[in-house]
């Protein structure tokens, strides 16, 4: 289990991580979601002791990272797949780590097989690897010590669709055997398909967290009508806050049944009424992070 408690880290006037608290539970995949520069990497670096926090703490299995003896055997870490000596072969990179952790060479072979790096590729210098191959090597490196906790920063970066699919299966299986997985991403879809729990961060602050189901539920309702103007009036009359959508209809924070009643009362013919689901989660992500993103999202749809 990973526990982050009121963590803060400042670089000069810039608060990279601002009072962040969350827990990643064993047996679950926790997605750490946020736009680039939101503080995901800094938080993860603090977890493994590479960056000292200004205040607050991060513990793994109840211990500070530095207090875990031979931590590679308990915590698998992939922070930057490119942070490897370009002149070493992939096999050599794993060999050095196995040596440090006190693991047999057979474990290196096992991991190379697991991530589908063949003998020839393993002998090549990491400098000649594609980003996808580096990412696979990084995942092999993280799993080498057979840890019970995985901390992966943007692990899907550079993987092709087949590779991403493979990694999802791997992490799903890992969590179902009781492992704790924390993975970060700046892409909602990536996290949405694999995570059980989600922690959303923007400009150093946690903006939402919970199970995926909870966050989906809070995404509200999508509704379209024969006459959207009439629907808009009906919703306003029922005191339902509604946001117009570009291709027609509205998104609201209330349940579908509330929207349905409002429409029925006013005799509005609905053409679509459903929980906002994935599109809603995306909307949520955009909204939650819109004021924290460098580029403001384009205003959706004409004002009604």
């Amino acid at each position, binding site marked *: 289990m990973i526990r982050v408690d009121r963590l803060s880290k400042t670089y000069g006037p810039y608060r990279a991580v601002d009072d962040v608290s969350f827990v990643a539970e*064993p047996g679950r995949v926790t997605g750490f979601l946020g736009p680039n520069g939101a503080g995901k990497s800094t938080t993860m*670096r603090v977890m*493994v*002791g*590479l*960056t*000292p926090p200004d205040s607050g703490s991060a513990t*793994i*299995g*109840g*211990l500070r*990272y*530095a*207090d*875990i*003896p*031979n*931590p*590679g*055997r*308990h915590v698998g*870490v992939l*922070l*930057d797949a*490119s*942070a*490897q*000596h*370009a*002149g*070493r072969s992939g096999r*050599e990179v794993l060999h*050095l*780590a196995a*040596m*440090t*952790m*006190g693991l047999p060479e057979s474990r290196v072979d*096992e*991991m190379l097989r*697991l991530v589908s790096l063949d003998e020839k590729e393993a002998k090549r210098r990491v400098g000649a690897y594609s980003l996808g191959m580096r990412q696979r090597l990084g995942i092999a*490196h993280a*799993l080498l010590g*057979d840890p*019970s*906790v995985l901390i992966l920063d943007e692990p899907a970066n550079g993987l092709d669709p087949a590779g991403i699919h493979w990694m999802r299966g791997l992490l799903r299986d*890992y969590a179902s*055997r*009781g*492992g704790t997985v924390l993975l970060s991403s700046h892409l909602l879809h990536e996290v949405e398909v694999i995570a059980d729990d989600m922690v959303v961060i923007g400009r150093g602050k946690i903006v939402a967290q919970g199970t995926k189901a909870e966050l989906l539920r809070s995404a509200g309702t999508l509704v379209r009508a024969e006459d959207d103007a009439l629907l808009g009036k009906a919703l306003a009359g029922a005191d339902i806050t509604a946001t117009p959508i570009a291709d027609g209809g509205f998104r609201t924070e209330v349940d579908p049944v509330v929207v349905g009643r409002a429409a029925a009362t006013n005799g509005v013919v609905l053409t679509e009424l459903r929980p906002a689901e994935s599109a809603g989660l995306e909307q949520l992500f955009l909204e939650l992070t819109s004021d924290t993103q460098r580029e403001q999202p384009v205003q959706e749809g004409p004002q009604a």
Partner: protein
Amino acid sequence: MTTATLETPAFATGNAIPFGRLLRVELRKMVDTRAGKWLLGVIGLLTAAALVILLLAASTQEHTFANAVGAAATPQGILLPVLGILLITQEWGQRTGMVTFTLEPHRAKVLWAKVAAAVVLGVAAMVLALALAAVVAAIGGAADPWAGMDAGVIGQYFLLEVVGVVGGLVFGLLFLNTAAAIVVSFALPIVFSVVTSLWNAVHKAQPWIDPATAQGPLQSGDHLTSTEWQHLLTTTLIWVVVPFVVGLWRVLRTEVK
């Protein structure tokens, strides 16, 4: 990976990584990259080349063990510091420090393993020099090839090599950048010789502050006088011990990027 269910993690269990293992890892890191392999190869080649030149260019009576050790130690003295520098700077230049200090978060332990690795490499280089020099002495044909050498003088050579390689490591630790560390390490003796030739007051103090001057007697073939030991001690304190403490302190406190 294992197919068994991952057990409830007991994170406090297991032993810390033994120091000897970290030392072996650090030694391996010096030979598993092209830069490291080339550097070690060049040190070996230049050591041999210096001895071949001695055999060809010097008169037969000069083919003594003492001369051969002196000849072999010169190229080593120049290149071993670079080896020490690379031991440190590759972790920052290639950013492998992120992995190294994640697998062993006690950074001081890693750095001491690097110091130990530097000492091992310095000693190994000197052993090679002694072995090759012995061959030169045996085949060189001098009347008394083994004259002028004793355990004390050999010990001083070992000290020279070790101070050299650890000194390089300290420069690496101070700059955390290969180019800067190498440039300063080579420029320092030149700066000293220029400054001392122009400035008389510094000239007098030179053996107390210039490591190259203080280390010179180590390869003179004579035992150091007590003043010379003091010179060596002072310059080592100034150029090795103090910067090591500063560099260590900084690495322990700062972020590893």
